[in-house]
């Protein structure tokens, strides 16, 4: 699943560590999310969307 987390994070001027701390996950988890290796749970997806004041649909895109 593709996502816009890296773009949103960079636009917000945040490091992976800072975003990870804000979302209460590890830096490795943020890195995996950005690289599309790990698909988040629904609660984490909502937390990411809430953090960037947007919706899940705006951040995560189905590959098909």
């Amino acid at each position: 699943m593709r996502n816009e987390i890296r773009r949103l994070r960079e636009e917000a001027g945040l490091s992976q560590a800072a975003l990870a701390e804000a979302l209460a996950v590890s830096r490795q988890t943020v890195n995996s999310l950005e690289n599309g290796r790990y698909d988040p749970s629904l609660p984490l997806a909502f937390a990411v969307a809430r953090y960037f004041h947007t919706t899940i649909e705006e951040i995560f895109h189905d590959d098909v």
Partner: protein
Amino acid sequence: MTTSEPQRTTRQPRTVSDRRFFLSCAAALVAVGLLWLTFTLAGEPDTAAGALVGGALVVAVAAVVRWRARRRGADGGFGRTLLGAADERDKAILTASLAWVGLAAFLANAVGLAAVALGADGSTVIGAIEAVLLVVLVAALLTLSRRL
């Protein structure tokens, strides 16, 4: 879509308290002690000593890993898991790794049964199965933490 002023969430990672960790270690040491006593009473002093040393070593390794993770900050999923600060990806990795261990256990037991039927020493086969499962767990943790 707006990206200005990202808001911070209030969730904090949970950590296992020292009390819970020490209780777990104490319970493990009691279990090891009971194992030692059982083997000793059964007239197997060498096996008893092996169980005692092996069990105590595992508890000591767990304590050292936790201590190091606390001092240097848990940068690895295993350290975070041991500290009780695992996030959902760490838990997914652990769950998937344990699933691999479960699958390997079925296969290893089948091979072990066949080996015993063909005349292999039972205790050696059990020890080999334990070693295989440990290797599978470590390999799965390392592989999955790179892939996920």
